[in-house]
């Protein structure tokens, strides 16, 4: 397949960069940063090659690269992307150099290891996005965890150990249960298929028994819901964010959280449609609670970083309800909201990093009147805030609008055998996020930037330095473009999203039975429960 080398290359580049940077002498922090920025920029440029080889009309996996990896297990090193993952990959490669550039001055201690961790993290994230093999996915999923643990635990704030351990254990609890479910899936699929394989495409042809789907979905969903994070599994997030260094926060919010939603879309829902149907009402209600709860709690914070961390709980709630709506509008909106959240929340954390680096505090009360001192930064930050608050013509609006809209009109188009309770009410309740978003974001903006410049230490803050200006200008331009021209992206997502809903509808209508290949049950039982779906 043309271009199939691109994805393995994308994984290899950051790893190479990490090895390379570890070979340089200690203490040369500007050299380390240079290598980091260069390697991540190259990775970004290479990732743009994807577009050249990507067929925008096709709905299956593209740029597939497949070699046998562990023959005894049937594990393959298989990567590929479709309309769902393509922009998430680009988001990852796009944010990484910006983050490294924007936090250039932030880390002086062990800068070599810091850059290496960031690059390994990038490889892990890219791997998890492009993996088409359960084994490879699980490996990449866990690979992400370690550098993040180090980033928080070594370069973090005062309670960094508590936060790092909490982050790891929280995530581990989920992913271990997922591993158990993966074993079950692996063994059962082998019975049905006659061969041991971890290939996602092969495994997803297997319909597992109803009970198994419910339990396996629950195990996968726990892992993903923790990552999202779905209320009430979110409490690791504020701690991790507050203690993580700026770069860690940006990547954590910008990319890592997306694995929750992505996992649902790629693994949990397609593999276990009956399980999804069983749990969907609960998940839908939890996501709407998350939207409102996150906004309320964000408002109660006096620490800027915590405020933004809780805003993620609210924003990712939109993404979650969007995919549960099972409408093309909701799912595309959800993916779009993830991309936008990466830009805006990434930008917010970078902005907080800018303030923290100058002032060494995250307490709202310590700021005030910053606009007077840093007008350029304030203006750009305002655009990011507004993007996050979902102002139309900025990127945040498109995702929120489509997810709420999709949820609102979901009632009529839900597949047979799948439902979420009172979609219009859920849609309306999630729309209150529009109000609350404005409440906490403007509250934060006013506290920091408006008011009198009456704290002496704020009087000497320098405005953005050139490298920071570049980062913020790129981000704000991206936020504008995302809000003004969403269609080119939506059109690329569309075929895969349609395929997702189509397949899901077909699979969830499959009659209950022992594990089997989809469509292989005797025709008459299939007819009896299939209903009127085309």
């Amino acid at each position, binding site marked *: 397949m043309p271009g199939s080398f691109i994805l393995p290359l994308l994984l290899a580049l950051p790893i190479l960069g990490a090895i390379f940077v570890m070979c340089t002498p200690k203490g040369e922090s500007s050299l380390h940063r240079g290598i980091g920025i260069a390697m991540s920029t190259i990775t970004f440029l290479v990732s743009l090659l994807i577009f050249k080889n990507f067929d925008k009309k096709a709905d299956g996996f593209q740029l597939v690269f497949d070699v046998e990896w562990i023959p005894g297990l049937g594990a393959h090193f298989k990567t590929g992307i479709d309309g769902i993952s393509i922009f998430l990959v680009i988001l990852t490669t796009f944010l990484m150099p910006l983050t490294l550039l924007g936090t250039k001055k932030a880390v002086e201690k062990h800068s070599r290891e810091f850059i290496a961790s960031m690059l390994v993290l990038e490889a892990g994230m890219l791997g998890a996005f492009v993996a088409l093999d359960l084994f490879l996915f699980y490996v990449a999923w866990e690979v992400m965890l370690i550098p993040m643990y180090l980033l928080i635990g070594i370069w973090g704030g005062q309670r960094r150990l508590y936060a790092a351990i*909490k982050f790891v*254990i*929280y995530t581990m609890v989920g992913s271990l249960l997922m591993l158990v479910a993966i074993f079950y899936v692996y063994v059962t699929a082998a019975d049905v298929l006659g061969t041991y394989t971890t290939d996602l495409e092969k495994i997803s042809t297997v319909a597992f028994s109803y009970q198994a789907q419910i339990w396996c979905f629950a195990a996968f969903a726990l892992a993903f819901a923790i990552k999202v994070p779905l209320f*009430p599994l979110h*409490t*690791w997030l504020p701690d991790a964010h507050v203690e993580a260094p700026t770069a860690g926060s940006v990547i954590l919010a910008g990319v890592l959280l997306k694995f929750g939603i992505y996992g649902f879309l790629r693994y949990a829902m397609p593999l276990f449609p009956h399980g999804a149907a069983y749990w969907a009402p609960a998940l839908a209600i939890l996501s709407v609670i998350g939207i409102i*709860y996150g906004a*309320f*709690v964000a*408002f*109660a*914070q006096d620490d800027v970083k915590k405020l933004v961390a809780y805003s993620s709980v609210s924003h990712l709630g939109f993404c979650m309800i969007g995919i549960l709506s099972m*409408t*093309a*509008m909701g799912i*595309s*909106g959800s993916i779009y909201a993830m991309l936008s959240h990466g830009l805006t929340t990434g930008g917010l954390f970078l902005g907080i990093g800018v303030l923290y680096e100058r002032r060494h505090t995250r307490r709202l009360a310590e700021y005030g*009147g910053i*606009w*007077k001192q840093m*007008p350029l930064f304030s*203006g750009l930050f305002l655009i990011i805030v*507004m993007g996050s608050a979902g*102002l*139309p*013509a900025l990127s945040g*609006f*498109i995702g929120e*609008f*489509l997810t*709420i*809209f999709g949820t*609102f*009109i979901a009632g*009529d188009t839900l597949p047979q055998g799948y439902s979420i309770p009172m979609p*219009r009410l859920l*849609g*309306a309740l999630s*729309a*209150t996020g*529009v*109000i609350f978003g*404005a*409440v906490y974001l*403007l*509250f934060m903006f*006013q506290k920091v*930037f*408006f*008011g*009198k*410049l009456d704290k002496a230490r704020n009087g000497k803050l320098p405005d953005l330095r050139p490298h920071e200006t570049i980062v913020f200008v790129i981000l704000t331009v991206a936020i504008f473009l995302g809000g*003004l*021209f*969403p*269609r080119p992206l*939506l*059109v690329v997502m*569309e075929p895969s999203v*349609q395929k997702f809903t189509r397949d899901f509808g077909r699979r969830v209508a499959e009659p209950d039975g022992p594990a089997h290949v989809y469509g292989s049950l005797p025709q008459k039982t299939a007819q009896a429960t299939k209903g009127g779906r085309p």
Partner: protein
Amino acid sequence: MDPSSLQILGLPMLAWIPLLPLIGAFLNLTLGRRISKASAHTIAIGAVALACILSIYLVASPLWQLFKAGAGGTGIEQTIYTWIEVGSFKVQLAFRLDTLSAVMILIVTFIGSLIHIYSTGYMHNESDASYARYFGYLNLFTGSMLILVLAANLPVMFIGWEGVGLCSFLLIGFWYENDAYAYAGRKAFVVNRIGDFCFLLGMFLLYWAVKDISLGPEAAARGSLDFANLRNPAYGPAYADAFWGGERLAAAAGIFLFIGACGKSAQIPLFVWLPDAMAGPTPVSALIHAATMVTAGVYMVCRMSFLYSASTTALIVVSTIGLITALAAAFMAFAQTDLKKVLAYSTVSQLGFMFVAAGTGNWVAAVFHLGTHAFFKACLFLGAGSVMHGMEHGGSTTPGDITTMGGLRKHMPITRITFMISCLAIAGIFPFSGFFSKDEILAGAWAVDPPGWPDWYGELLWGGLLLAALGTAFYMWRLYFMVFSGNERSEEAKHAHESPPSMTMPLVVLALFASIAGFIGLPHLSMKLPSITHALSSWLAPSVTPTWYMPNTVEQLSIAVHESDTTIFSLAGIALAIGVIGVGSAWVLYGRGPSPTVDKLVEGPLAKPYEASKHKLWFDEIYDVIIVRPFRTVARGLFEVVDRFIIDTVAVNGSAFIVGLFGRLSRWVQNGQVQRYIAGVVVGAALVFAISDCGRKPTFSYKLSDGEYEFTAEPGAGVGGANARLRWDLDGNGVADTDASGNPLDAPVVKLRAGEVGSHVTLWVEDPISRKTVQVTREIREEEK
């Protein structure tokens, strides 16, 4: 030539109208700190003026041609590109110029230009950076408003809708160093967002109602949130039944959209942001109150006339809220002592008038009053700015306090004349513009009789509005007399002086329009008047719905009701009389400065109403108690109780603690001391013996079924029990039995016919390790036999 293909520089001509101010905003906001004041305001004024010229051209030429050809309702639609597309849902970034949006763009760009010019004088004391920032915001505001009015569908309208909200946040909080001002800006944005939330819900409901309806092949490709499609009644019975037939759905969508309008147009219960919006620079107030922002809600309701004429339930909500707001705001204006606050409440009240007009299906009157109000209110605000500017020059630190003014007629003649004309207009005195537009609203309310309304409701609205009009005339002229008449009540007032020409010139232009603009909307009388006097109604007719949408009927009921000349003249006469009474009573009480009677009244019989008016009926206080504080408390409570305590402390760290506890216990056990390990082994073994049934004696049980005994050995627990060697003696002869083939009977379960069982059965159990044998003998009872 097809007007839809008009282009400038490759972009549709309509796009340039909002784009020009937006470009101006971009330049001023990015280059602001590097350019001089002169270039900053040249860019800004140039951008809006160009947009104004372009608007005039488009309205006067291509749209006029369409209008004359009878296609004014179709208007000019231009698509720039497809904004959002998912599946069958498609939103074009498209603009629509029809006769309704034409009125709006002319008002916005024309008054906007004047306010820009005025601002050069008013803001000249600002630093270079904030001067450019100010003009950037002003341009952004104008541009957003132009997007709002030109939008061809609801989502694009929403861009402008939220855009003006953002600009109000920025401009009200322009002097951000003052916390109260910044808070006022935030309040404006948040309250508007509550409205925007309902606007979204209304939009979703509308789409949900019509999404399955085929709008024809062309329309299917255009998406069905487009006004052109929604308002077209030609799409057949399916459309009418599914939506216009479903009155409740239309009512729900209409009411949600109207709550959105309440946010923008400052109606009860969402009006609270507008009085505080005075925190912004005065020209901004003029822009908010006259040209942009608050007119958006009224415009939207008129734009959606097709929806509202399908639901008289929604309309009764609109007109009732309008009336209550008109009355309440007029009442709140009485006791205000701040120049701009009085004007703010008068705006809220006048917007109430407009909503009553819209709520009675009197779309033309709503737009008419919107237009005349734009002129006289802009003139009043700019006049107020001029007065405050003068007072500041006189050295006043509270330039808006009307109790310190008086006698300014001597010092500010131009401001005084223009202010007076506007006061006459707003009081509804013939022949100034406000007289005609207010009269249209009153007459419309009197005559209206929508299906489903009580007969007397129109008259009730009329009576209520008359009361509000009386109040208006009184408080506006109280304001006028307090400011300009009598003698100066402070040193600062004595030293006030007239503002520069950049400020007075816009005042004169606005006052001129405030005087004569009424003549385009005269009532339809039986005698023939020149057609220009009905220009507005014939111009707007193609863009608004003239009939009530009645499902399942062929016959359409017209909204407009024609009254006899006598009725028209009597209604006008009453309205005029009310205006004169209002002005007259203001003259009596305030003509030469506040008379002693006022103090007596305020301290005596009117003390309570006065307090209520002064505190704006305690709306802010009530909201503070029932919304703001609970919100904060709930937020705090959720965080402290649910997040920190229940989830994090109890559930998360609690489970971590339990795991840790086990860890600590096992650490104490695994301490490396052999003695303790041995002790552990001993204790453990003892426990094993105690808990397990090792000490239990072997036995067996038996039961009888179908004439057969079944003996089951219970040799005891543990390894010994499981591997024990068994032998049975079933026939009671004292010797171990064998089966038919001579093997010893050693199975755990053995069976024997009932007749062959002896009176005693014996089981030998031999322990496999100690080789010790235990003998169990049981007597087989008769009854069990």
